[in-house]
């Protein structure tokens, strides 16, 4: 009898235990080789510790051995979804350092390409986000529309993702004769498809329940963690480099910086959807007005930057991308640093996911739109 009593005393409170789960490096929702060490209590996430470096390729070290035009093709491989913006950052940085002004035509084309890249990136993000929430069909609708943008890239730049379209002083080629017509056709087509995105996923009650009030990141935290891009703007962090330090043709176009103060997953979702509309409007403003002129300046065979330190910020689809070149006057950089948006965004994940369920962790991570080579570099 006394034995039984003891057992009852021992089990009067249901014993719970924390346990750790490795999400990744091979996990469907990490979109690459990110490893998250998740501490769980039942389904509740107590702590998320990202472990990076599985695809660290030492791009910064590699860049120290090659010349400035050659660096550009390596920047394709970091954030492969905003390859054109990363290219542009290096090209702009070198142009600024050499104090040359590229022709207007180049600026216009670069801006259009930027926005097309942003559209393509946000489309891929949208379809993957749907998939992370469990709506598998979104994946194909997003890719369907993205493929057409990639076709435009392929026709003009010669590659679908790793475009390498910029060079210091201009562009690799002039735009293809079909370019303007194709882009206009595409914009017309995509304007009919984008409302479908809203109807299929944005309005869906399950999706709303899954995202509203989930993954809260306040403005102060967003600034403190350096969470930029759509993720930061959903917390009200006005971080759009296109607006605050405009480059290329951005000073010439009218567009709104999408800000949202709800700070949750839904806000991050809607900021991106609205940014797609803004991108469409920017492209529409520019596509008919591309001025005539050279597509590239005649540059010297060997580019040597003056001694000094140069920093260039651009806005990629994921946030603020920075190139910091320390030059000692040689043809290759003394030190080059890429400030990648994904790196800073990733580490806010712990703050956002704490206390939510595993399923929310996946959904929150997806709203950050992480690209692993961008984090690891």
């Amino acid at each position: 009898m006394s034995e039984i009593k003891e057992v009852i005393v021992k089990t009067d409170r249901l014993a719970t235990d924390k346990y750790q789960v490795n999400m990744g490096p091979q996990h469907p929702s990490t979109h690459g080789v990110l490893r998250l060490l998740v501490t769980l209590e039942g389904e509740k996430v107590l702590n998320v510790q990202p472990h990076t470096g599985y695809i660290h390729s030492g791009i910064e070290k590699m860049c120290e051995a090659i010349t400035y035009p050659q660096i550009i093709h390596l920047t394709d491989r970091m954030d492969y979804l905003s390859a054109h913006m990363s290219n542009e950052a290096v090209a702009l940085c070198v142009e600024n350092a050499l104090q040359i002004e590229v022709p207007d035509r180049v600026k216009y084309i670069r801006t259009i390409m930027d926005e097309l890249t942003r559209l393509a990136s946000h489309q891929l993000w949208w379809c993957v986000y749907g998939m992370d929430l469990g709506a598998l069909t979104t994946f194909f609708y997003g890719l369907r529309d993205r493929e057409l943008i990639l076709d435009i890239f392929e026709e003009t730049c010669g590659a679908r993702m790793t475009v390498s379209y910029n060079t210091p002083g201009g562009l690799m080629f002039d735009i293809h004769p079909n370019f303007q017509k194709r882009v206009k056709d595409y914009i017309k087509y995509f304007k009919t498809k984008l409302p479908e995105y809203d109807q299929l996923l944005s309005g869906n009650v399950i999706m709303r329940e899954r995202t509203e009030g989930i993954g809260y990141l306040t403005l102060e935290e967003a600034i403190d963690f350096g969470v930029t891009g759509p993720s930061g703007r959903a917390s009200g962090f006005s971080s759009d480099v296109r607006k605050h330090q405009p480059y290329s043709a951005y000073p010439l176009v009218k567009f709104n910086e999408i800000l949202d103060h709800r700070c949750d997953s839904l806000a991050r979702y809607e900021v991106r959807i609205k940014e797609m509309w803004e991108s469409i409007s920017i492209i529409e403003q520019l596509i008919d007005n591309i001025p005539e002129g050279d597509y590239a300046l005649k540059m010297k065979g060997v580019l040597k930057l003056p001694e000094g330190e140069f920093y260039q910020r651009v806005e990629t689809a994921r946030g603020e991308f920075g190139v910091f070149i320390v030059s000692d006057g040689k043809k290759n950089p003394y030190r080059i640093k890429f400030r990648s948006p994904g790196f800073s965004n990733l580490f806010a994940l712990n703050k956002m996911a704490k206390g939510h369920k595993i399923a929310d962790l996946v959904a929150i991570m997806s709203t950050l739109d992480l690209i692993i080579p961008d984090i690891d570099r």
Partner: protein
Amino acid sequence: MKSFIEYIVSIFKGVWTLLIGMKITGKYVFTPWKHVTHQYPENRDTLVMFERFRGEVIMPHTDNNEHKCTGCGICEINCPNGSIEIISKSIITPEGKKKRAIDQHIYHLGMCTLCNLCVKACPTGAIVMGQNFEHAVWDRSKLTKVLNQPGSKISEGVKE
């Protein structure tokens, strides 16, 4: 009572959003002939790549087995990955002068990132980007190619 009405309304609103979603997918499922995928190996004959598509570096030869490469090595310098190696030889021109010329233009496709810098840098336009994208081979050594064909020589009139 108010919360009860809200509860009922929320059910209908929720179901309505679900039905809208089903309308979108339903629109596609009942038009299955509007699929967007390509049947790749079957459409090989009709598949045309864009003219600027970067599939591999090639060196075009004329019918007389002549190319434009002078063996200057600028492409080798411009390549970021070291995927081009130029082996040159010295030949004796008809005038009796000794001259450097290309022996082998070695191209490692396996290392190439198709960045177009070599093509852009080439002063004589000897190398261009080819549109072939089916590069799969059983043996990695087959990815190392010699671009100038055996017995080929440089075209007349290409400036050194």
